[in-house]
Structures are given as C-alpha cells and as structure tokens.
C-alpha cells in the first residue's frame, strides 16, 4: 500500500528545502525594494552617494539572489519528483499559477537582474532605475503567483472532482485568482519580506556606525530602512493572515489549534496569551487569557463563534461518513460510468470525498471502515497543537518587537541622534537573525498547521507522495543536507566578507578611480 518511510522522508525533504529556500526569498523581496528606493533618490537628487549605496547593497543582493534562484528550482521540481500523485490529482488547478509565475514574474526578474549589474555604464540613470524596478516588481509578482497556488492548498476554491479523469479539475479560474486566503497571504508574506530586508539593512548599518566606518552611507541607509521597515512591520501585524483563517474548515481547525481552543467558547472568544496545551486531556494549563480578543481577530465581529477543536472533529466525523458514500459511488462509476444511481449518490456526497481518503491510512477499503477507524480518521484532522501554539506566539512577539525597533530607529533618524545611542545600535545589530526566525515560524504555522492535508479537505498528505523507493529519497535528502549546508556556509562567508569590506573597501564611497581588483 503506502510506504510510511517514503512519506516521512518526502515531507522532511520538502519542509527542509522550502524553509531553506525561504531564507533567501524574503531578503530578495525586501532588498530589491530598498534598492529601488535608494536609486530613486539618486535619480531625483543626482547625489552620487545614493548611487554608491545602491551599488553596495546591490552586491549583497546579488550574492543572496543567486541562492534564491538556485534553491527555487528545487521547489518546482519536487512537486513532480516527490509528490507525483499530488501533481496528477490537482495539477489541473495548481500547475497554472506556477506556469504563470514563470511567464509573468520570473522572466521579468531574471532577465533584468543581469542588467542591474552590467548596465551601470550602458544605461541612462532613468533606464537603470527602470531595470531595478523591474527586478523588484518581478520578485513581488513571483510571490503573488506562488501564494495564489499556496492559498489554494489551504482553501481550494473553484474546482471539482472529475470521476472520469480521477482528479480535481478547474471550474472557475477567477475564484482561484481572487481567493481571499491568497490576498491575505500575499500582503502578509511580501510585507514580511520587506521587513527582513529592512532589518538586514538596519543591522548592517548599525554595525558600521558602531565602528565609525562608512558613516555617511550607514546613516542614510538606516533612515531608509527605518521608515520603510516601520510601514511594513505595521502591515505584517495588522494585516496578519489570520484574517484568512475563517474561510475554510481546515483553516478553522488551524486557528483552533493555534489558540489551543479545545471547545467552542461563547462569542466573542478570548485570546490565550500564554499557557501549556495538553493534547491528552484537551485542556490548556496555566492559561492567561484576554477576553474578546480572539473573536475580534478571527471573525472581525463580536457575535460569531470561533469553533473549538472537539466540535471541529465531530464535524470531520460527519464528513468522513458522508465521504464513504462518495467513495463507494465512485467505485461503482469506475466499473460502469453510466450508472444513474451511483452518479446521483456521488453528486450528493462528492464534497466529502477527500475525508473518505483520510481512512486509507487506517484501512485498505474505506467502505469497510469500522466506527473506531472513523474515529481515528476524524482525530487525525487535528494538527500538532503545542507546536502551532508556540510557533505562532513567538512569531507575533517578534512582529511586535520589529515595530518597536523600527519606531525607535525612525525617531532617532528624524532627530539625527544615532551616535548618542550605542545601546540602540547594538540592539539593532543583534536583531539581525530575528526576522528570519519569524518568517520561518510563519511557514511552519501555515503548512504544518495544514496537516493532515496536502490540499485542505481534498487530498491527505500521506496519499500525495510519489511511490518511489525509500532508498532514493534517503539519497536525495542526504544529498540536499550536505550540498545545501556547504552552500550556506559559503554564502554566509561571502556576505560577511562583503560587509566587512564595506562601501569604502570596494571604492564605492568615497569614490576612488581604481577599485580594488577582485570584486569584478
């Protein structure tokens, strides 16, 4: 049947390569925008220092961009290599946004990025700024298409199962494009990327100021990062993608798990700031609760309930029972596609077919499932509550910290008082790794919280994997760990080296006529 080892290995590989890829993507998103801002100031004011800033941060952008591209190809390939059944089952819907990402976004980004580096002497000021803007636009558009695809996994709208092709097929492309979850995710993720870029610029600039090096460039860079970062950090938190969680049933399960809300509370539900969720007893120990807050965040109302885990499991149980009907009817239809009875029965229950597939983990034939197996399958819809609970809280805590950090930087920048506040510069420098932690935790909440589904309510993850030998996946996974670790080490080494060398070392600022050799 289904080889458990292959599923675990494929999930591990996908999670690791996706988290790794997302170390580089948000910095690309954020730095490309910051480059546009800096170069715009250069074009508008004509002051050479802003060009030097663009070029220096551009070198760091380039080192990081290469890693983003390199690790991105892996993501596109892996759906086919490791998730073949997924690719067949939902490729009719999921493939289009990925192809459009290539056509509309990645082409733009990748075609113009070369000119960013090689076009300084060949293009006019305005034309070069346009090139930089195309790179930034391409990376943000790229995020849009990927998040449309990802949102469909969380909330699969506009599609229907076709018994003849045995897969989901597109019914409404407009619904897929205008998926409310996609909109919430896009704003949240892109703004988070801008925060990563801003903290990066802020932290590196703080390091220069602490050492009294590259002061002119660092002060200006810090001002850009502070204002851009403040706006983006506010967007990330206020427009957090929790707002999208009310849309689908699994999304509701995700929010119940994040909040460790075991039972439905009378609305508006309270928000648990702190506590220890206990999976065995369905209680949260030592909980500190803020009345009303969860109801307001999740439903944007005071009269709608936020359903609890136990109630959602009961709902899943009903859907599994209904799904068994659909599964049985589908079996009949495979033998005789013209059986009118089976067609009617399938049509009545097809929305729950995915829930019947959950049973395949416990029984060979879902139509023979015992009540105990149905109960098991219903409880399998609950993701890992303590992990989601804590990841979410750390992420939100970091988000609030970034707002304070940027607000302080903004205040100091507007008063020209960075030098008197070495404590602030130290905090700013030490904050460097934090936005990456927040971004990775965000993906863990979103995707680990989607389990047990690959596609919410449609296709369980354990069924989606490719039936390849476990030994092959061991080999590819081990290869990734070794290869990616080596690349990460070189990447960090080059970034650190470039930062140490600084705009002065490159001859960008103060401008020297003969820049030192190696850095062509």
């Amino acid at each position, binding site marked *: 049947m289904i080889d458990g080892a292959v599923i675990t290995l494929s999930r591990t590989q996908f999670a690791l390569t996706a988290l790794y890829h997302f170390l580089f993507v948000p910095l690309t998103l954020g730095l490309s925008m910051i480059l546009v801002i800096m170069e715009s100031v250069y074009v508008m004011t004509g002051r050479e220092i802003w060009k030097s800033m663009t070029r220096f941060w551009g070198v760091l952008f380039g080192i990081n961009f290469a890693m983003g591209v390199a690790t991105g190809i892996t993501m596109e390939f892996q759906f086919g290599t490791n998730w073949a059944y997924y690719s067949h089952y939902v490729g009719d819907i999921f493939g289009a946004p990925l192809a459009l990402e290539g056509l509309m976004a990645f082409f733009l980004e990748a*075609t113009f990025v070369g000119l960013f580096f090689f076009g*300084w002497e060949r293009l006019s000021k305005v034309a070069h700024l346009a090139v930089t803007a195309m790179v930034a636009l391409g990376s943000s558009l790229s995020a849009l298409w990927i998040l449309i695809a990802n949102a469909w996994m969380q909330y699969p709208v506009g599609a229907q199962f076709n018994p003849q092709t045995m897969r989901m097929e597109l019914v409404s492309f407009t619904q897929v494009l205008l998926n409310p979850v996609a909109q919430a995710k896009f704003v949240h993720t892109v703004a988070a990327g801008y925060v990563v870029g801003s903290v990066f610029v802020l932290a590196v600039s703080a390091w220069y100021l602490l050492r009294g090096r590259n002061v002119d460039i660092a002060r200006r860079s810090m001002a850009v990062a502070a204002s851009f970062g403040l706006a983006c950090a506010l967007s990330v938190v206020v427009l957090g993608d929790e707002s999208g969680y009310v849309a689908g049933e699994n999304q509701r399960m995700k929010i119940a798990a994040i909040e460790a809300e075991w039972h439905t509370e009378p609305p508006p539900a309270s928000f648990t700031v702190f506590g220890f969720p206990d999976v065995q007893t369905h209680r949260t120990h030592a909980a500190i609760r803020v009345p009303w807050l969860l109801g307001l965040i999740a439903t944007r109302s005071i009269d709608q309930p936020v359903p609890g885990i136990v109630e959602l499991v009961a709902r899943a149980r009903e859907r599994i029972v209904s799904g068994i009907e659909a599964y049985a009817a589908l079996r009949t239809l495979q033998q005789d596609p013209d059986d009118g009875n089976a067609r009617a029965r399938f049509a009545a229950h097809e929305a729950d077919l995915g829930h019947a597939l959950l049973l395949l983990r416990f029984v060979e034939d879902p139509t023979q499932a015992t009540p105990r197996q149905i109960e098991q399958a219903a409880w399998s819809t609950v993701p890992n509550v303590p992990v989601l609970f804590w990841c979410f809280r750390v992420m939100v805590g970091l988000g609030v910290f970034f707002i304070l950090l940027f607000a302080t930087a903004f205040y100091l920048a507007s008063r020209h008082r960075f030098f008197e506040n070495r404590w602030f510069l130290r905090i700013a420098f030490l904050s460097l790794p934090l936005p990456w932690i927040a971004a990775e935790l965000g993906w863990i909440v979103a995707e680990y919280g989607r389990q047990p589904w690959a596609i919410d309510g449609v296709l369980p993850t354990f069924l989606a994997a*490719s039936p390849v030998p476990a030994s092959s996946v061991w080999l590819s996974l081990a290869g990734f760990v070794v290869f990616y670790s080596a690349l990460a080490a070189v990447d960090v080494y080059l970034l650190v080296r470039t930062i140490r060398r600084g705009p002065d070392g490159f001859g960008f600022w103060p401008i020297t006529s003969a820049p030192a050799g190696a850095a062509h």
Partner: protein
Amino acid sequence: MPDYETLRLIWWLLLGTLLIGFAIMDGFDLGVGATFRFLGRTDEERRALLESVEPVWEGNQVWLILGGGAVFAAWPLLYAASFSGLYLAMFALLAALILRPVGFTWRNQLADPRWRSVWDVALMLGGAVPALLCGVAFGNLFLGLPFHFDELRRPVFTGGFFGLLHPFALLAGVVSLAMLVMHGTAYASLKVGEPMSQRAAALGRWAAVVFAIAFVAAGAWVAGIPGHHIVSGADPLGPSNPLHKHVGLVPGGWLLHYHVHPLLWLAPLGALAGAALCFVALRARRPGSAFLASCLAVAATILTAGVALFPFFLPSSTQPDHGLTVWDASSSARVLLIMLVAVVILLPVVLAYTAWVFSVLRGKITLESIRRHAGY
C-alpha cells in the same frame, strides 16, 4: 473556442516551442559553461568568456523553469510520471543547475586562484551535465520507461537509475552535448575577442562534426528499435485517461510518420544542414552566420525527435497501453485555453524585453574591456 483536440495539438506545439526556446537560449550559455575553461587559458580570458553569458543566462534559464511549469499546467500526468520516474536523474540535473547561479555570482568574489578553479569546475559541470542529461532523457523516451498506473492512477516505476543508461540513451546524450557545445562555441566566437574567439571556432567545428555523426547514428539505431503506436481506444476529444487505449509495437515504428509524410524529412535534414553550415561559417570566420546555423540545427533536432514520437510523450516499456500521449495526459480543455491565452499575450512581451536586454548588451567582450572593468 477551439475544440479539445485542437487545444491539445496547440499545446503539443507550444511545449515544443518552449523546449526549442530553452535549447536555443539556455543552450548557448550551457555550451559556453561546459567549455570556457578550455577556451580561456588565463583568468582574464575565462572572465571574458563568462561575461559573454553572465548578464543573460539567468533569463535564459527561465525557459527551462517555464517549460517545467507548462508541463505541470498543461500535462500534469506527464509531469507526475516523468519527474518521479526519473527521480535520481532529476536530482542529478538539479544539483548541476544549482551550481550555476552560485558559480556565476561567487566565482569572481575572491581573487584566490584555487577558489576560482573550484567554481570553474562547478560551472563546467553545471553546463555539461544538464546538456548530457537532457539528451539521455530524450533517448529514454524512444526506449520507453518502465512504468504503469495503479488503481488510484498513481504512476508506479519498476526501473532504477542505471536502467536509464542504455547505450542508445547515452548516444542521445552525446547528440545533445555535442549540439550545445557547437551552439555555445558559435556564440562565444561571436561574442568574445581574440584569442578566445579563434579557439571557440575551432572547438565548434569539431562539435559540429561529432554532432552530425552521432545524430545520423542515432537515427539509424531508431530505425531498428520498436516504435509504439496507438491501435485503438484513443479519444482526442475525450477526458484524459491513459488506461483506455491499446498500443502496439512495430520495429522501426518511430519512423512511421516520416514514411507517411515524406516532407517531414526536412526536419532531420535541417539538423544536418544546420551543423554543416555552422562548420563552414566557423571556418570562414563568420560567427554570426555560424550562430544562426546552430540555432537551426538545435530547433530541427528537437523537431525531429518530437515528430518521431508523436503522439507519444512518455511510452511505457512494461505496460505499453499505459504510455502517455497527447490525447490522454492533458489538463482540462478550460485550463488549456486559459493558459493559451496567457501565453499568447505574455510571451511576445517577454520576447520584446529580452531582445531589448540583448541589444543593450551588444558588442564584443574583449580582454581590454575586462581590464577596464570597474566591478559591480
């Protein structure tokens, strides 16, 4: 609105177009990557060769990314079966492709010759391995891959990595590698100054000869192996279900279309003519004409293989009835139409700005220009 059969045919053509786009655009930078360490003997010479492709290779590679995305969107069954079936080969390809962006960006960050040698080797692997593997994969299509579908329609493979290294597939790999070396050296000869241009032209002539010989040998070999053809049960207008048809095997069957429509012989003749013209133009030191000729050879080679396999994408060697064809592996008609509209609107835009970028970067990269370089 075009009917399902027409849409499927259009998407077969579009996939061919994307593949040719990939081979022509990314092909030349793969070819330069595979050979630059031989063509350039000093670090300056190598930097000039790399710089001839460095600003554009990234955009070129999107043709491959887009090709992958288009297979996913338009031919999901093909995407699922081929990527999982060629599992380890795919990861070898991936590893080679990952070396390229980091190699290009990182090589010149440090002046240490050992550091640069390491990334030179990485870039060579990044150029040669994909060129070779793409050919090996194409060769395996003619042999068929050992797979069938289970009751849930999951592709099940019964072969391993080394099964892919059949002598015929390796020969196809040689065709592909020689073709892209010819293409890349023609480009380098056009784009860089002396003495690299001269060396590129010399190597390109050799590559053209190897390509032509391997291409003819592969063609003769194909005439002897069994070709798949649909006996009954295919429905070009019906839903995509690869389990309903019956497939027969005929010795030399892959050449059937050529016997029925003799005009199609123009495709393989075009490939050979392209190689011959490229050879002649390189000898006459006309690199621009040589590059156009190698473009012809590349496009005609892919066309030759595509025509031979039609309507098959991925024949099955163990369960021929389950082989994937144009008629039973596509997305729904709705998705094919939406994606067609997107391609018709967006691809010309892509071509327009790509052309602009190339025009900004026109001109030869000489050793003088490398020495003048101000850095990033």
